[in-house]
């Protein structure tokens, strides 16, 4: 008789519903054609993300007590559930953004299948409670993303992006795997809490393992100096995919980073805290300085995402409850701003048919006021200006750092923000401040097709960005109950 473990179906439901959607989408690819295929597959993917989101909400509600299920391989708690809700939101918005992208007809359904599969992998990844599920989840969503980056084969940059992401990402995965092996070799355990129970502080092998795990995860959260793939991959990938990578991948990677470090390596807190702080400083410095000289908007946003990884890693480095709360809160407006900004870029790209640069953003402010003012809101949000959640997020991150006495991280963060003002406001300047004579009007063909779904996606992102400024209390309550799960 085979003993099978007790299966907690609800815990798996978010991942499974997206997997089901992915399977369905592969069927759609076979059995439909033309416009019907496009609509049906988008709808199926959207429905998949919404279902996953609903399951994640239910899971959040029914996980008052954190537990480890499925033979110590998966967590069932609010930390993962809240991240899953966010991931589902990102996925749903990405579907809306993707709808009118000019996919090759034969790729439409596969695209959505891969998107949902990546989403499923992330859902699984954030619940990982052992080194095995950690690596499994990471590879699961990464492989889907490698293909997604390269899916637009008509675009030279897309193939390049996919290849670069694949190679560099594989190095990251390999590093994580090696680190996991060392941690296992030292402790003889795979699950995080048992590693903590068997490990000792300052054990050389475990520490090397820890370092490699951090590096592997830093590749995914595109923190400097492990961000080399980010600008090229973000620039080359189809813009809706970029938006999904910038928001969802970052959510998954950072949430898991905090969890792994806090749960599996509590003895070495004072070690990884400074390692993470160093990575945060490097990301802030590198991301912001490199962004200044960019002209391509997607590259600017890519470096901006590196710098925001730095901000969120400050919360990780704080290694306290406030930091956990700060990270979960920060991710909400950050995800909305990233998705929204890339959505606006996608809209402009479709209108012009060329990559969006600061030069050809000119005039967007007056030709497409809704998109432009939304973009301005996202930029002010990234910059941490009030009336956006970005402001509260930075405030929380700084508070968390100060709470642990790491005031120098506040200084680094403040200086980084000052530098970032140049390029974020540069985008606003490009959209609004040019003279009419300098405007590069849209190429022939008049107004572009009305993009209702894309507009709705952008509007949703604006609402989240602004509402997270006013409704801090409910969001922070959610983040707090999620953060309590971590043994900090």
């Amino acid at each position, binding site marked *: 008789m085979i003993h099978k473990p007790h299966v907690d179906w609800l815990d798996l439901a978010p991942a499974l519903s997206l997997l089901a959607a992915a399977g369905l989408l592969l069927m759609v690819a076979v059995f439909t054609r033309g416009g019907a295929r496009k609509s049906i597959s988008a709808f199926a993917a959207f429905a998949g993300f919404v279902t996953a989101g609903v399951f994640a909400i239910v899971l959040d509600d029914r996980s008052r007590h954190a537990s480890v299920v499925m033979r110590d391989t998966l967590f069932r708690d609010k930390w993962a559930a809240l991240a899953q809700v966010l991931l589902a939101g990102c996925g749903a918005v990405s579907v809306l953004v993707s709808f009118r992208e000019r996919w090759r007809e034969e790729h439409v359904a596969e695209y959505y299948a891969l998107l949902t599969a990546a989403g499923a992998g992330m859902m699984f990844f954030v619940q990982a409670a052992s080194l095995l599920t950690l690596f499994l989840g990471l590879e699961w969503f990464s492989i889907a993303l490698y293909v997604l980056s390269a899916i637009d084969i008509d675009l030279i940059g897309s193939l390049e992006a996919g290849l670069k992401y694949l190679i560099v990402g594989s190095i990251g995965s390999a590093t994580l795997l090696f680190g996991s092996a060392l941690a296992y070799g030292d402790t003889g355990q795979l699950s995080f809490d048992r590693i903590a129970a068997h490990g000792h502080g300052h054990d050389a092998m475990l520490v090397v393992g820890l370092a490699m795990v951090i590096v592997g995860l830093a590749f995914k959260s595109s923190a400097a100096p492990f961000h080399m793939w980010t600008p090229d991959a973000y620039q080359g990938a189809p813009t809706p995919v970029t938006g999904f990578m910038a928001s969802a991948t970052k959510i998954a990677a950072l949430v898991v980073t905090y969890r792994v470090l806090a749960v599996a390596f509590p003895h070495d807190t004072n070690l990884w805290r400074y390692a993470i702080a160093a990575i945060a400083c490097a990301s802030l410095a590198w991301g912001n300085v490199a962004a200044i000289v960019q002209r391509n908007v997607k590259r600017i946003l890519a470096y901006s995402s590196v710098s925001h990884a730095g901000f969120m890693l400050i919360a990780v480095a704080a290694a306290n409850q*406030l930091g956990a*709360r700060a990270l979960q809160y920060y991710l909400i407006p950050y995800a909305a701003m990233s998705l929204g900004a890339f959505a606006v870029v996608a809209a402009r790209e479709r209108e012009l048919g060329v990559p969006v640069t600061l030069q050809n953003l000119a005039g967007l*402010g*007056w030709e497409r*006021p809704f998109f432009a003012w939304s973009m*301005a809101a996202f930029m*002010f949000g990234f910059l941490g*200006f*009030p*009336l956006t959640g970005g*402001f*509260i997020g*930075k*405030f*929380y991150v*700084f*508070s968390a750092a*100060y*709470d642990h006495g790491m*005031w120098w991280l*506040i*200084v680094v963060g*403040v200086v980084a*923000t*000052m530098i970032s*003002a*140049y390029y974020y*406001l540069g985008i*606003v*300047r490009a959209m*609004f*401040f040019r003279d009419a004579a300098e405007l590069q009007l849209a190429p022939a063909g008049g107004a572009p097709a009305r993009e209702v779904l894309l507009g709705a996606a952008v509007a949703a992102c604006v609402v989240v960005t602004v509402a997270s400024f006013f409704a*801090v*209390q409910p969001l*922070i309550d959610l983040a*707090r109950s999620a953060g309590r799960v971590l043994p900090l």
Partner: protein
Amino acid sequence: MNHWLTTILIFLPVAGALLVAVAPLPRAYLGSLAALVSLVEVGFWITSASRFDFGSPALQLGQNGSWFSDLHVRYHVGQYAFSVWLVGATTVVMAACVIYGWWVGRDRARAYFALMLLLTGAIVGVFAAQDLLLFYAFFEAMLIPLYVLIGVWGGAGRLRGTLMFVIYTVVGSLLMLAAIVVYGLQQGTFDLTRTGTSSSTWLFLGFVVAFAIKSPLFPFHGWMPDAYRESPPEVAAVLSGIVSKAGLYGLLRIVIPKFPSVVHDWRVVLLVLASISLVYGSLLAFRAPDFRGVVLYSSMAQSGLITIGLFANNDLGFDGAVLQIVNHALVSTTLFLLAGMVERRTATGELRLIGGLARGRPALATAIMTIGIISLAVPLSTTFAGEFLILAGAFQQGWGWAVVGAVAIVLAAMYMLRAISGVLHQDVGPAVSDAALDLRVGELAVVVPLLLCLVGLSAWPNLVSHRAFGGGRALVPSGFVSGGSTTFTVSGPSAGWTAYVPPAGSR
């Protein structure tokens, strides 16, 4: 509804901005809608001033609710007596500027008026916020509309102007953010009415630099010439009339009460910087080649003078500073608007190209003459009252400061008379055509009420200076100190106040 009044004053213009932004009205009506909103705002301010008990030093018309509780950040707004005057100056100036923008017919009206109203709400918020984070949020929120207003509707050099403006302001305000985080977490609350004092020089500097940039004070004024020159005139008026006052308000409301011992140590440094701003600004104004240049450097000089009043640290200085803040808000707004009106007629503000504008333009000449005379503080004018109080206060601190102030007032007469004669008198400049009109009805409708306000204040400067701190002579801007004109009873966490409160008999 008293406790709603401050909230209404903050959010009425914001709601107006949203209405203007989305209302399906033809463009022609947007300006009138915005003007209406800004006038209603003035009406609400009059209501709030009439319901305000100026005899009490306490926070009034306040509202206090939790914003997010785990870091003890609150939505706490309310007004002290001096805030009432600052808010009043804001509403009046913004109404004048919105109406001027409407009359001039700014293009892209929807965005323009929405931003102007948003700016109104943010500035009122700065003067009303009693929670540090809320204060910071409004302080930063001012920057967004200003940045776009200068960048879109500004002159030819506006890109450089916005860049300088943003670099300076963002640097300052982020230093302040760091200071706020540390200070608030140290105190366990961000509520200004509850926080105690701090003796940290670093935090003090974080705040002071931010406010000195906003004011601007020497040597933090590098952004000012470009930003003021390249803005549309009504935005320059707002910048110099009101936004700069946010910096001075910050010194009054945050720096002086919260860092008494550091202020004590740094007073000379601050007074020196303020004196340099005053004299250097006046000299630059005297040398400025254009009308706006005179006004903008005089604005810097006035910020220096007001700062001297604040750091004189006695009732005379504080009363004078508040009165002079209100005066200068009105004076500077009028001057910038008039400069804009001149530029509309001559397409330049350069003094060597214009001149002789008085000929055949009696209304313009009278307006510029009147405001010029008020601004150079002739006796009987309200600016004279303000500057006299400040100088008297500074004299108590040390006669040297008063001498600097008096010299600068002579300089003020020189630069202002030079500007008046350069614009109105002398030979008719090449840029002045005979067809250039006198002030039109719309322009008079903006300028005359501002002048009337100033004339009224000249008749009755006590209206502000005796009602700036409540309780007749109570010095302190909050419930830290209670007491009447003869004794200062110190209570609460801010006993540090005693360190530099002058003996009651000193006046």
